[in-house]
């Protein structure tokens, strides 16, 4: 099986892409939920500095120590940002935007200075080369395994282990930080570990997708999941599903159109987000619109029922409870009046008898529920059965 994988370049590329997405969305879920997504942008940029420094010091990029070293720059960025915010001179958003460009700038200048010594050019820094991951391999036993596959696999396992082990603590720290603190869970420390893992993932994913596209893999799949569900564990599942789907579809489209693979994968995460935004079951635009329309229609029916109920068995009944009166008294035009009457008939709330409209028991109940809320009879909610 491993042989089949190692002979199959497209499969390797898709696997690396999916792993980048899965590892990133494991940590990204918490960033999105805490409202600190843009830290991933800051981390993604500033690890460039760390990677260059680590490369200049050790002339290696991919060992665990190297990843840790470069990842510390990400944590440094967050630390410096928080330091700036705590002085109360700079707001949080401005602080984020001040710190990472400085580190990124120094990284780029170091690349300028030591261009001959460093294996990365500024182009790769931003775009990554996921198409070439199979070229850079390490020998493990009898197999030559792509470096990226190895480091991304390790980061995925690490992130997965962290999230599984501290699931309860992370959940509490995310949704109720005060309570977590009161229970002695050190949510601050937990968050820093999370950011360290985010930085580590960024470093490991750097060769494949670069500094900026990484942001898409961290934020977009969890944000998509957030539009689809309210359950934390489902968010992880959806996030992973979006990552895998983006990787596979992104690779396919990139090959067809002969464009950047990493770029296309990131674009596909955006496409899935857009789908969830439009067609999500509960928070999607279409669902919201349908819900509003349903509410609107229900209100029309209620208005009609109340109108009929008010004039029921009164002298002016023959004048008021006719379709014509709806135009004059409720200011409904003919088509609207027609529509509401028809819908009410369909729901067996009223019946038409020639010109006049008559309430049925269910319609009377609906009107009473509005006019005498919490009143007589059992609290049967007609609106709910209608809804």
């Amino acid at each position, binding site marked *: 099986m491993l042989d089949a994988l190692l002979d199959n370049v497209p499969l390797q590329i898709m696997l690396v892409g999916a792993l980048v997405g899965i590892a990133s969305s494991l940590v990204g879920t918490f960033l*999105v939920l805490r409202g600190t997504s843009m830290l991933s942008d800051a981390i993604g940029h500033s690890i460039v500095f760390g990677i260059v420094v680590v490369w200049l010091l050790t002339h290696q990029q991919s060992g665990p120590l190297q990843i840790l070293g470069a990842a510390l720059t990400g944590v440094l960025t967050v630390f410096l940002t928080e330091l700036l915010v705590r002085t109360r001179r700079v707001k949080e*958003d401005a602080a984020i935007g001040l710190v990472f*460009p400085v580190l990124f700038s120094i990284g780029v200048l170091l690349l*300028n200075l030591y261009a001959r010594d460093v294996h990365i050019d500024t182009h790769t820094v931003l775009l990554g080369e996921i198409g070439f991951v199979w070229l850079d391999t390490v020998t493990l036993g009898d197999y030559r395994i792509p470096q990226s596959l190895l480091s991304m696999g390790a980061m995925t396992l690490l992130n997965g282990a962290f999230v599984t082990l501290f699931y309860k603590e992370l959940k509490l720290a995310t949704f109720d930080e005060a309570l977590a603190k009161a229970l002695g869970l050190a949510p601050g420390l937990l968050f820093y570990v999370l950011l360290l893992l985010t930085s580590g993932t960024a470093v490991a994913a750097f060769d494949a997708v670069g500094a*900026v596209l990484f*942001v898409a893999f961290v934020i977009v799949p969890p944000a998509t999941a957030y539009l689809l569900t309210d359950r934390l564990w489902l968010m992880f599942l959806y996030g992973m599903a979006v990552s895998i789907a983006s990787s596979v579809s992104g690779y396919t489209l990139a090959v067809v159109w002969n464009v950047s693979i990493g*770029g296309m994968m990131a*674009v596909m995460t955006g496409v899935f987000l857009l789908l969830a*935004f439009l067609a999500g079951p509960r928070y999607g635009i279409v669902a919201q619109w349908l819900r509003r329309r349903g509410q609107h229609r229900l209100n029309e029916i209620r208005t009609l029922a109340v109108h009929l109920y008010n004039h029921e068995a009164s002298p002016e009944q023959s004048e008021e409870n006719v379709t014509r009166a709806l135009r004059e008294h409720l200011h409904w035009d003919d088509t609207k009046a027609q529509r509401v009457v028809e819908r009410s008939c369909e729901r067996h709330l009223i019946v038409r008898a020639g010109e006049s409209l008559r309430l049925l028991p269910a319609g009377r109940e609906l009107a009473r529920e509005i006019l005498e809320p919490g009143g007589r009879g059992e609290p049967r909610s007609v609106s709910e059965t209608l809804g």
Partner: protein
Amino acid sequence: MTLAEMLQDYTIQNVVAGAALLGLVSGVLGSFAVLRRQSLLGDTMSHAALPGVCLGFIIAGTRDIGSILAGALLTGALAALVMLMLTRLSRLKTDAGLGITLSTFFAMGVVLLTHIQGMNNASQGGLDAFLFGQAAATLRSDLWIMGGITLIALTLVAALWKEFKLVSFDAEFAASLGLPVVWLETLLTVMVALAVVVGLQMVGVVLMAAMVIAPAVAARQWSHRLEGMVLLAALIGVAGGIFGALLSALSRGLATGPLIILSVSAVVLVSLTLAPERGFAWEAVRRWHARRRLRYQQVLTTLYRLAMHHDDPGFPSEQGMLDTYHGLRTRGVLRQLARRGLAEWRPGPPDEPGPPRRWVLTSAGIAEAERVLDRLGQEET
């Protein structure tokens, strides 16, 4: 090369002029963005300019600066609108909206960039210079366009100054005056795209965020008024831009964009430390003074209370006991009191070990202690 020679160099002239224009426009527009807590929107819009750059190139077929900048303006502004839409119409928060638009628009840019490279168009060279900027390639004609955009932005700010000011500080009040708040806010937001467009050539899409934020944050430390802040931000932006550009010309081979960003960021650091009132340095000095003053008053009133307790204005208090009572060494403070003539020391009994010190308040000391206690009492009531 001397400075005079450098300033006569055609390329350097262009770069310096471009950097100055960038500093001017981003300082002014950035002030509003930072005050309205939209700092990171500049980051999103600049990353989102990349697909526009590529589209401009594809449509024009050459590296025509006009269409490239128009494209950048379009996608930058579009990204801002998409961000607003995502956050207004769904449960996503601002940070997620920013991150989503930033990364997906940039990804589209990357895709288009590789698409252009696949077209084998000879004139596509240097398109990815827009990632980091390519200040040295600035032409006189580019400067005219950048200058024109700057002029438009500054004219808009000047013409709508009062409205922008009101919307930035109190949008609700602005709305109650009947101002079209939504339009003004959208205009202010989209105008950041103008700054981004000017910066594309100089610092590139990635570093543009700092160019919008840094001059404004630095200027904010020195001024409490919007007028002062905007003027100062423009000045800092221009100075940082020129300094960075000259530095890069001197160094030969260091990229201009990062040097400009580092110059402006250095001004931020200096401002945060040294600006009167808001600077850390002054705050530390103030705090140190306050702490000293407090300790001085505490020891003085302790001496006074002990004396009163013993019904003896000349009651000698032991220094060791004062140390224990205050939990710190009071010797320095007591000496200070003595220097001001508020307290005097008396030698202790000769058989006592250690520094035999006892302290007595002078009549001036008693008056001062009464004054301090009096004021404290007033503050309490």
